[in-house]
């Protein structure tokens, strides 16, 4: 069997605080193919963001390892660009400067100054943010900030795009709009994506596979559900689609029947 594009094997992590060690994750095994869109879903506190941070290199796994194209991931890097939950734009830079900061650093050796400037514009255009390029983050809406965050991540030409609840802080309408945009971009660029979410519809709509996590401590992957829906997907058509309804039911069943949040179950 060919080597997996992204390979998490036996990944576990423990934190020690005040002499007490808590095992947050154990035995996480996941293989991704190139161009695959995988969502990780689970109750809050189950360590799904921790998985993402380990892949990003922002956290170090206590056990196991993450291989990207056969190379071990040990530190953060632009080939694993992150779209942060709270957008993480630098408030003293304009929208364009925020994207340019990443582009100028990451692609310094690969593209000329003019090419980099054009690449920044190209990525802003990809998320429809050219009109606000001169604005600062505090002058634009939450949805716009997240679009800039996505543009910044895509502009790094990542092999894997990591998204940490990218639309979690947005209202439902804006979220739907951005999901559509993301699907459109994904159709064109064919990035490998790992997305953390707590939204069942979002997971089913966007993913090729949904990774469902059990509750912590010592959380791990409970089940992996393939979503065999053809692309492009249209949210209106899917509402009545049998496969969609079935996948949605599977995830809901996992989250609320088999692995209900302990606090709620009690």
């Amino acid at each position, binding site marked *: 069997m060919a080597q997996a594009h992204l390979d998490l094997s036996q990944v576990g992590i423990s934190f020690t605080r005040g002499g007490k060690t808590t095992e947050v994750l154990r035995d996480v095994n996941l293989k991704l193919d190139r161009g695959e869109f995988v969502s990780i879903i689970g109750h809050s506190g189950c360590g799904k963001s921790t998985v993402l941070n380990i892949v*990003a*290199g*922002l956290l170090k796994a206590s056990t196991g390892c993450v291989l990207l194209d056969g190379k071990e991931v040990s*530190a*953060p*890097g*632009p080939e*694993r*660009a*992150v779209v*942060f939950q*709270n957008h*993480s734009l*630098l*408030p*003293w830079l304009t929208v364009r400067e925020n994207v340019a*900061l*990443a582009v100028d*650093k*990451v692609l310094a050796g690969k593209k000329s100054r003019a090419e980099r400037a054009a690449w920044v514009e190209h990525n802003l255009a990809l998320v429809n943010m050219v009109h606000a390029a001169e604005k*600062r*983050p*505090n002058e634009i809406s939450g949805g716009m900030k997240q679009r800039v965050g996505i543009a910044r991540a895509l502009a*790094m030409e990542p092999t894997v795009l990591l998204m940490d609840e990218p639309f979690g802080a947005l209202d439902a309408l804006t979220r739907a709009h951005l999901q559509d945009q993301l699907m459109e971009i994904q159709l064109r660029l064919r990035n490998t994506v790992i997305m953390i979410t707590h939204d069942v519809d979002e997971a089913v709509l966007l993913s090729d596979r949904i990774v469902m996590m059990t509750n912590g401590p010592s959380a791990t992957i409970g089940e992996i559900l393939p979503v065999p829906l053809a692309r492009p997907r249209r949210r209106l058509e899917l509402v009545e689609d049998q496969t969609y309804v079935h996948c949605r039911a599977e995830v809901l069943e996992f989250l609320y029947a088999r692995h209900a949040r302990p606090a709620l179950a009690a």
Partner: protein
Amino acid sequence: MAATSATLGTAARDAASVKSRRLPRVTGRDLRALGARVIPPLVVLAAFLLFWEVACSRPTAGLPPPSRVLSEAWPIISDPFFDNGGTDKGLFWHILASLQRVALGFALAVVAGVMLGTLVGQSEWAMRGLDPVFQVLRTIPPLAWLPLSLAAFRDGQPSAIFVIFITSIWPIIINTAVGIRNIPQDYRNVAAVIRLNPLEFFWKIMLPSAAPYIFTGLRIGVGLSWLAIVAAEMLIGGVGIGFFIWDAWNSSHISEIIVALVYVGVIGFILDRLVAAAGSLVTRGTSAA
């Protein structure tokens, strides 16, 4: 038909009102707002001068009333630019000399303070080692450093500059360190993902992110250095506003002292506002993050 004309009528009226609202740049409301800001301080100032005039009007009063200050010190008020050689110069030259010392000492303090503050803010060990030392040193009154620096430099000029430096550096260090420690983890994550090197991280993330804190330190620092320079110059002599005040005291020119004090106050106020303005210019957007 009637509806159309009604709509047109409204549109025309709207246009007219927009025009009438736009044409006069200064409206009555603007003037009232300006008056509300300017009148109270003027009233207080006038009341203060009147009280002073009355209180010091007796011939036996220790201090001259404002009217006599004005008449006695008129030569130095009317011509701040004269230069008769030596220390017999106009107020402008004295203030300029003091400002130069402050500028040099403060500039050194900014560079050293931001660097030390970054070190202390960034490294847990540097903080544990240096913070207690800073906390003790910063309580030493500025003038207490003067004899030591005179002994070390054997000259008034560098000693005065050193006193400014050592006075203004502590708030800069402490505020910079707090600013650096408060850099959100998000910004550090972004820097890690795009792999900024430490120097790039310093210029592109640390400084802008800590800028609001740093400028708070700079404002306190510049105020302290202006406080210290006047006292230091009284002791070291030479040209400078502090020396001018001491010299006037020795010659019993009380009116000249009062004029000099007004200048010192106004310049200190301007320095504070300049640093504050520079701060709000540089940290545009950051504070509202």
